[in-house]
C-alpha cells in the first residue's frame, strides 16, 4: 500500500517567535523556548491552588521557600523537555512504525508488536508492582491464600503477569478494531457491562484491587507511544479516520485489567 507522508494532516501553523533581526535560534532551542512558556501556563493552576490554601486557608508560609522554588523550576524544565522529546521521538517513531507495519502488510507482525508494547511496558511498571504487593498482602490477611512469604510473592507475581497480559491483549484488541473499522462504543460499553456483572460475582477483596489496576497501567511514556501507534495506523489505512479510529487504545488498556484481575480472583478461589 503506497503511502505519502505529505498526506498526513500537518500541524496548524503556529505564530512565529519574534527575534531581533540577525539572530536565528536553532530549531531545537526554538521549540524548547515555546514549550517552556506552555509548561509555565500548565503549572500555573497547581501553584495557585497550593499558594491559596497554604497562605489564605491555613495561614502559613511554606518553611523552605528556596527548595520549593528550585523544585518548581525542575517541574517546569522537566515538562518542557518531555513535551519537546515527544514531538521529536515518541510521536514520529510510533507513527512511522505503524506506517511501516501497514506497508509490510503483515497483520501478525503488527499484532505481535501491539502485544509486546502493552505487555512489556506494563510488566515492569513500578506503580503496578507496588499495587500487586499490597494486594497479595491483603489477600493473605483475608485468608484467600496461604500466609507464608513464598505464597504471597507468588500471588503478587501472578497478579502482575495477569495485568500485563491484560494490557497486551487490550492493545491487540484495539489494533484489530482499527484494522476492521469496528465502532468503539459497543466494545467499551460491553466491556464495562462485563465489569459490572463480574463485580457482583468476584470475591470482594479483589474488586478494589481490580478497579485500581486499571488506573495504574498507563504510564507517561506508554500513553504517547500507544496513541501514536493508533493514530499512525488509522492514518495509513485507507478508509480509516484518525479521529474516529486512531484513538481508543488507552481506553481498552484501562478496561481489560479490571476484567482479567476479577477473572483471576474468581479462578484462584
Amino acid at each position, binding site marked *: 500500500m503506497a503511502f505519502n507522508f505529505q498526506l498526513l*494532516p500537518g*500541524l*496548524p501553523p503556529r505564530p512565529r517567535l519574534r527575534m531581533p533581526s540577525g539572530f536565528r535560534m536553532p530549531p*531545537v532551542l526554538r521549540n524548547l523556548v515555546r514549550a517552556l512558556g506552555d509548561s509555565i501556563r*500548565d*503549572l500555573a*493552576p*497547581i501553584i495557585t491552588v*497550593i499558594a491559596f*490554601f497554604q497562605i489564605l*486557608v*491555613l495561614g502559613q508560609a*511554606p518553611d523552605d521557600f528556596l527548595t*520549593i522554588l528550585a*523544585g*518548581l523550576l*525542575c*517541574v517546569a524544565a*522537566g*515538562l518542557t*523537555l*518531555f*513535551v519537546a*522529546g*515527544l514531538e*521529536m*521521538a*515518541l*510521536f*514520529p*517513531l510510533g507513527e512511522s512504525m505503524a506506517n*511501516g507495519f501497514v506497508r509490510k502488510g503483515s497483520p501478525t507482525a503488527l499484532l*505481535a*508488536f501491539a502485544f509486546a508494547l502493552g505487555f512489556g*511496558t506494563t510488566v*515492569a511498571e*513500578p*506503580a503496578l508492582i507496588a499495587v500487586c504487593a499490597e494486594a497479595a498482602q491483603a489477600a493473605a490477611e483475608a485468608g484467600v491464600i496461604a500466609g507464608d512469604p513464598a505464597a504471597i510473592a507468588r500471588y503478587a507475581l501472578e497478579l502482575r503477569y495477569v495485568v500485563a497480559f491484560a494490557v497486551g491483549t487490550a492493545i491487540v484488541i484495539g489494533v484489530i478494531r482499527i484494522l476492521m473499522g469496528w465502532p468503539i*462504543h459497543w466494545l*467499551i460499553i460491553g466491556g464495562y457491562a462485563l465489569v*459490572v456483572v463480574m463485580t457482583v460475582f468476584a470475591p470482594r477483596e479483589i474488586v*478494589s484491587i481490580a*478497579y*485500581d489496576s*486499571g*488506573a495504574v497501567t*498507563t*504510564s507517561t*511514556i506508554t*500513553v*504517547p507511544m500507544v*496513541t501514536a501507534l493508533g*493514530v499512525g495506523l488509522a492514518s495509513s489505512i485507507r478508509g480509516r479516520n484518525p*479521529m*474516529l479510529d486512531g*484513538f*481508543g487504545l488507552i*481506553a481498552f*488498556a*484501562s478496561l481489560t485489567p479490571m476484567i482479567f484481575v476479577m477473572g483471576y480472583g474468581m479462578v484462584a478461589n
Partner: protein
Amino acid sequence: MDWAELTFSTLFGTLRDVLPIVLVVIVFQFLVLRRSLANPARVLTGFVFVVLGIVLFLIGLETAIFPLGRGMAEQLIAQAIAGVDGQGWLRYGWIYLFAFAIGFSTTMAEPSLIAVAGKAGEISGGSVGVLGLRMAVALGVATGITLGVYRIIYGLPIHWFIIAGYIVVVIQTATAPRKMVPLAYDSGGVTTSTVTVPLVAALGLGLAGAVPGRNPLIDGFGLIAFAAPFAIISVLAYAQLSAYMARKGRTGGSRK
C-alpha cells in the same frame, strides 16, 4: 532524602521504565520491519529529552509539590475533624474545595494528557481545542474527586456512583458527535497518572483514616476510580456543547 539520592533513584526508576519500550522498538524496527530510522540523531535526542524531562519533573514534584500537598491535606482534615469551621456540610467545606481544586490543577499539569490532547488537536486540524479539551477533562476529574470525597465522608458504597457514571456515559455516547467518542474514552484512562495519583491518594487515605467509622483499606481507595467516568462524561459534554454551539451558529438563530 537528599538531592543526590533522590536524583539517582528517580533516574534509575525512569530508565527502568523506558527500557522495555526501547527494547520493543529496537526489536521490531530493526529485526521485523528492517528499516533504519529516518532521523536517528533527532529521535535519540528526543528520547534523551523524554527521560531527562520525566526525571526532572518527578524530582521537582517530590521536592516542591507533593510534601506541600500532603501536608495541606493532613491539616485540612485535622481542622475539619476538630470542627473548626462549623458543623454539618460546612464542616468539610474546605476539604470539598481542596479536592475540587487539586483534581483540576493536577490534571492540567498531567504530561500524558498534554500528549494526547496535543495529538488530538493536531489530527483534527485544530477543530478540537487543546486547552478546551484539557480543561474539560480537568473539570471532570475535579467533579469526580469531589464526589469521591463526599462518598468517603458519608460512607456510601462506591459501585453505585461508578455504575451511575457509566450509565450517563452510555446515554451520552448515543447522542454525542461520533468523532469525539474514542478521544473521550481515552481521556478517562490518561487522567490519572504521575501528578494526580499521589496527591489524591494521600487525601483519600488521610480522610478515611480520620473520619470516624471509615476504614482506610475499604474506603481510602477508589478516589482514582471516580476520576475516569467523570472525565469521560465531561469530555462528551464538551463535545455536545461545541456541536450545539456550532449548530446554533450555522442556523444563525439565537434563543431569546
